[in-house]
């Protein structure tokens, strides 16, 4: 309460009276010498540096050194040593309203005890270490300077990773741990590269291979496996926030339908080792670079993901934030309402970055083989509104745009000193008019043909039935012919007419579309298309009317009237002037969020794209960009070693944590870029290092090493990690040889719990996800630069009780038993944990098996041995080292 009392006093008083009051209160504290570095500087760093430090110097004042405070700014010195009462610094932090520092817009003022510290420090003479250094220039921040390939320290091994790590051990006198058992390494590398454990055959082959390059062969095999793309695709989809669509009931509000095409593109690209730079360019701007390459257009699912039906600003905010974090490790989002507090990113920079994306919208293109966009299609980005302006929002408030100053696309000057060149892109005809794509017309015509064929056969069937029935009735009765089957025949006839009419009209529309696109004389063709389209509409209306008339239900008169009216109107339109017709669309635009209007809805797809996103993508994926490669190799490193080099994986700015191994990071980044941004090369480099081979155990470790670096920040041993959710489930299936190896395709519904597809293929949205995976910290679709690794009882329950775990235990036990391996316990250990049991473990298992047998025999079970073995395997699936990548 004392603290609050002081606070109230500080706020209500002012000037000298306040100084006296506070001095009395804090006199006890003032008697102690204030430690500038430990007590004063942290306050100033947290609350004042952003505006009075290296980043900005409001009123010419810096407070990042005592010297600077004494020198002061435009208003003279900030601090008068020995006299807190005369020091403007104290006056301002105690100020009220507009006078207070930090300003009210920055939240609450300094706490009373903080002010007391400042005051006491000044009263004691405002002393500071003579060698105090000012806050470093943001331009010198390590991550904003392009990486240069550092010299690899001399070392006996061939892998630079080991050389860089070893240098630090030598410096700090640490002793690394020996390599892990071969089986452990094989399990580790297999899980890391393809997401399932090695099979018995993999293990025997590796054990038998005594050649010096046995490990390299394993790595080559794994990197060549199509499952490598599935494993690493899921990692990158975490970072890129993959999500299937979600919304309220059937209303799509977030993301897009069929976005799994993007997932398949990621998996395929990784399998083909497409360069990371090329992947970035494709995700941000494939529509401008390869407008007719539907395969590559899938990449723009990255831009389809942040779709939000209700608010275009929210949508674009997510694009800005996560483009910044994912590719650049920059927290651009912090500059939405005000200048960035730590990085040289002004508030206008935030909106300049947004402007790259301002024109883009989404549409779903027709894909070959499917004409129904509800069933399949390609969600993709395109510049729908090339002229859409970007405005800065005052204090980030979308209701307060600065309309007098439209903002052009651009980049923070410090990161892009050369600026950026944007050139508009002319799109090929089919990109702007996807209805012209040959397969679109072909598939529509095939479908129309099929409809005609079906209608014709339905008509003949109806005709025959009707003829047979009336013949029968004529023979057997004196009354008139039986007309019960006539309606079916009439309906079938109408359907056939409608189908034929549709087919003819479709052809005519396609002809007219083509002529117009090729700038040939088109007016006659357009008139024809128009006329046939209207005839087709009439035929369809007549078909509907027939249906309404012969519908069995009561109270159909309303429907009949409506159908009759529709026919009349269609007939009227037949002779209406004009040659308007609807071109074949070939794509459907997604509603432009809350900014959709009737006009924007009807607008045709532009034939020019702004080129903004291409320019941005080029800059991000440029070798000169200091951030991109560093951020990427850090992500890869973390997923192999269980710890990142830069702990703040999505913030490489000044607020982030510096790298534990800056030279190693830079070497990896440069090597990565110099070798075509090849992910597979990077993986190979990492997993063939001695560091990656090391045991994760600290047993027998050098005590001095253990004491100096208990958290293993310097990689003197390997880090064990917990399997990600997907790996847990896929491994259960794989160990039982029950994993469906099919690659790609539409998502598996979450209710299909017994599916054996890889977990990557499950539907996964904010509101709908597989519960088994959720138990093991599945990726949040909102943001997941790094998975959580919780250890909670729900995981124990899922592995102990789920149908999946129980069924797989049964199968594994059965397979081992059928293999006639005389040593069941060893075989089970090797299969599930990747290594043989110790003698103590074996004894424990034998004891448990015996106990189970007794129990099961007492229950009269036919085959207690077999059942006990299943239980043993089930226990091993619950072993800590099953879910752990050792």
């Amino acid at each position, binding site marked *: 309460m004392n603290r609050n009392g002081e606070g109230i006093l500080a706020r209500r008083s002012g000037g000298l009276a306040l100084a006296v009051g506070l001095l009395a209160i804090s006199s006890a504290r003032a008697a102690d010498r204030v430690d500038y570095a430990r007590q004063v500087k942290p306050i100033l760093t947290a609350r004042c540096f952003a505006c009075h430090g290296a980043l900005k110097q409001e009123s010419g004042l810096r407070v990042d050194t005592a010297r600077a405070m004494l020198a002061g700014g435009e208003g003279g010195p900030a601090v008068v040593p020995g006299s807190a009462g005369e020091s403007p610094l104290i006056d301002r932090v105690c100020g009220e309203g507009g006078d207070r520092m930090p300003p009210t817009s920055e939240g609450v003022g300094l706490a009373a005890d903080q002010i007391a510290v400042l005051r006491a420090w000044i009263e004691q003479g405002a002393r500071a270490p003579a060698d105090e250094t000012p806050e470093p220039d943001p331009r010198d921040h390590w991550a904003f300077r392009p990486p240069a390939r550092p010299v690899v320290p001399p070392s006996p091994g061939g892998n630079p990773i080991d050389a860089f790590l070893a240098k630090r051990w030598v410096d700090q006198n640490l002793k690394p741990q020996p390599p892990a058992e071969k089986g452990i390494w094989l399990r580790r590398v297999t899980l890391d590269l393809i997401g399932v454990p090695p099979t018995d055959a993999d293990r025997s082959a590796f054990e038998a291979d005594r050649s010096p390059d046995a490990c390299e062969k394993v790595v080559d095999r794994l990197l060549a496996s199509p499952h490598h793309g599935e494993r690493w695709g899921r990692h990158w989809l975490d970072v890129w926030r993959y999500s299937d669509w979600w919304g309220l009931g059937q209303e799509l509000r977030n993301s897009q339908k069929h976005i799994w095409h993007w997932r398949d593109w990621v998996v395929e690209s990784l399998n083909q080792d497409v360069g990371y730079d090329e992947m970035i360019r494709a995700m941000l701007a494939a529509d401008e670079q390869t407008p007719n390459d539907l395969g590559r257009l899938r990449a723009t699912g990255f831009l389809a993901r942040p779709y939000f039906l209700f608010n275009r600003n929210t949508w674009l905010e997510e694009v800005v934030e996560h483009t910044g974090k994912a590719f650049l490790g920059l927290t651009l989002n912090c500059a939405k309402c005000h200048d960035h507090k730590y990085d040289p990113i002004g508030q206008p920079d935030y909106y300049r970055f947004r402007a790259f994306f301002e024109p883009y919208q989404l549409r779903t293109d027709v894909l070959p083989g499917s004409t129904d966009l509800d069933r399949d299609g390609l969600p993709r980005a395109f510049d729908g509104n090339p002229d859409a302006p970007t405005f800065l929002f005052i204090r980030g408030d979308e209701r307060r745009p600065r309309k007098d100053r439209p903002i052009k696309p651009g980049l923070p000057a410090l990161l892009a000193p050369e600026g950026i060149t944007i050139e508009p892109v002319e799109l090929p005809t089919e990109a702007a008019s996807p209805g012209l794509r040959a397969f679109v017309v072909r598939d529509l015509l095939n479908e129309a043909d099929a409809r005609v064929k079906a209608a014709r056969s339905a008509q003949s069937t109806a005709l025959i039935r009707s003829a047979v029935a009336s013949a029968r009735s004529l023979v057997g009765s004196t009354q008139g012919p039986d007309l019960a089957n006539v309606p079916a025949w009439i309906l079938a006839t109408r359907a056939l007419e409608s189908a034929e009419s549709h087919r003819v009209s479709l052809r005519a529309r396609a002809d007219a579309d083509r002529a117009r696109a090729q700038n040939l004389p088109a007016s006659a063709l357009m008139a024809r298309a128009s006329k046939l389209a209207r005839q087709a509409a009439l035929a369809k209306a007549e078909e509907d009317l027939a249906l309404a008339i012969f519908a069995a239900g009561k109270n159909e008169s309303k429907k009949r009237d409506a159908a009759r009216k529709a026919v009349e109107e269609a007939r009227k339109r037949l002779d209406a002037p004009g040659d308007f017709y609807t071109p074949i669309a070939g794509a459907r635009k997604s509603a432009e969020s809350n900014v959709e209007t009737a006009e924007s809805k009807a607008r045709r797809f532009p034939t020019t794209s702004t080129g903004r996103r291409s320019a941005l993508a080029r800059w991000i994926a440029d070798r000169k960009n200091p951030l991109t490669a560093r951020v990427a190799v850090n992500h890869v490193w973390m997923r192999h070693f269980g710890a990142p080099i830069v702990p703040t994986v999505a913030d490489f700015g000044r607020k982030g944590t510096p790298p534990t191994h800056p030279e190693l990071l830079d070497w990896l980044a440069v090597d990565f870029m110099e070798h075509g941004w090849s992910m597979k090369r990077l993986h190979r480099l990492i997993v063939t290092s001695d560091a990656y081979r090391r045991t994760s155990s600290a047993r027998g470790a050098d005590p001095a090493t253990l004491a100096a670096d208990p958290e293993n920040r310097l990689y003197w041993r390997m880090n064990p990690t917990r399997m990600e959710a997907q790996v847990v489930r896929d491994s259960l299936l794989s160990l039982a040889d029950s994993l469906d190896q099919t690659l790609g395709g539409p998502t598996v519904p979450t209710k299909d719990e017994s599916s054996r597809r890889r977990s990557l293929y499950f539907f996964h949205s904010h509101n709908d996800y597989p519960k088994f995976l959720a138990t093991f910290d599945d990726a949040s679709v909102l943001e997941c630069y790094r998975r959580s690794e919780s250890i909670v009882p729900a995981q124990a329950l899922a592995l102990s009780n789920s149908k999946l775990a129980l069924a797989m235990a049964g199968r594994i036990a059965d397979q081992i038993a059928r293999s006639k391996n005389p040593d069941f316990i060893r075989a089970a250990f090797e299969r599930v944990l990747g290594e043989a049991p110790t003698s103590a473990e074996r004894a*424990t298992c034998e004891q448990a098996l015996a106990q189970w047998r007794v129990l099961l025999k007492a229950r009269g079970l036919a085959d207690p041995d077999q059942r006990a073995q299943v239980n043993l395997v089930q226990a091993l699936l619950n072993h800590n080292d099953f879910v752990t990548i050792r």
Partner: protein
Amino acid sequence: MPYPGPAPSRRDFLGGLGTSFAGLALAAILHRDRVSLGAEAGWSPPDGKPHFPPKARSVIWLFMNGGVSHLETFDPKPELNRYAGKTIEATPYKSALDPKKLALSRVVVVNDANGQQRNTLFPTQVGFKKYGQSGIEVSDWLPRLGGCVDDLAVVRSIYTTDNNHGAQTQFHSGRHMLDGEFPNLGAWVHYGLGTLNDDLPQYVSIGHREYWNKSDGHYLGPEHDAVPIRVDPTSPLDYARPEGDLSTDEQRLGFSLVDRLDRLRGDSYPGDPALAARIKSYELAFRMQRSLPEALDFRGEPESTRGLYGLDDPASRPFGEQLLATRRLVERGVRFIQVQHGAGGAGVWDAHSGLRNNHAANCRKIDQPIAGLLIDLKRRGLLDETLVVFGTEFGRTPGSQGGDGRDHHIYGFTVWMAGGGLKRGVVHGATDEIGFHAVENRHYVTDIHATILHQLGLDSRRLELPGRKRLDIDHGQPIREILA
């Protein structure tokens, strides 16, 4: 060998781990840095202890989905009847429509059919009576709850800013839907405080959660999500019992084997915190598997108690069962239970039309159960340490929608709290004469959070994570006037 029960000689292996769920989660994440942990000197995760002496131990968070009309429950407005049928402009209270005041609203769905201004006043659809010594007025649809009014602290001046059902998430987390998703109150409590009972999850969710309000932990991590519980002792939660033919005896042997094997691994991997945490998690899982069904088994409850919760009335039975389960869980030391009432659409209370029938029916479903809960807690001496909250995403418009309904209303509505060291039988704050704006002692929804955290002995600012700066409005201010 019965499980659990580690061999005494192995006890030291778990030394220092603590025995709590919170301790467990911490042990697991200590060596990690999901958020820039370690980036900030001096930061450390919570130790599970309150920051100052707490008044309350547990929280029961009752949430009515859809938006309860304050005007037909806890905030009587005779002037609505006087000016019924008139537009607000035509009454002395036309200043309610001051655009500056209305600017509070932050719209998600532009031009939605709902969430609009409704300016033709709609009379109160039910009568009110004064109850108890405090004489606080409660609507005739809630007579049982009226009988408990001397235990309530009724806050009639809450406001929010999302005029659509995104206000559900806003009520839980304090953030507007357009800001993204943030940890909710229960998650903060779970993050900040240690366990009251090792055998039960500490943050539990009962009842259906709508589209807007699906999860809890967000950046605190999924381990701080509420555990969804079904009031069904045979299947209280996912994977609560073997989904296959496995007897309890067999499984106990299995758990015991896993325990022994994991401990043996401790020799090969000394000091591995994850291994220690996993051993602990299996012990807890095994105990939870037994204790949860027991907690949800009402067979031992006397007939009188069942009646108290309205289990004899089909209308009130479903919610009554949930609240009886809630009491049993609180009694056994569950820290935070959120109970959602009213599934379907945007929530059953969403009375855009037919408000009279809607609210009369819904009140009947909750009146006896909530009153029963309060009485039961009180007679067991639990109300002193249990804080009960009655909330909803927003109130409903003083004006009519479609002639017989009320629309969403964010500018002023009622929330009440009871027990947990709060004043009893008081009203705090007020809306204007037509129940439009909160005018006296206005409180944003996070003031409720701050009040609850304060009673639990937590300072939300001390729970903040590095790299996750929260705004002043996220923290809110305790409503000091209702603290006992």
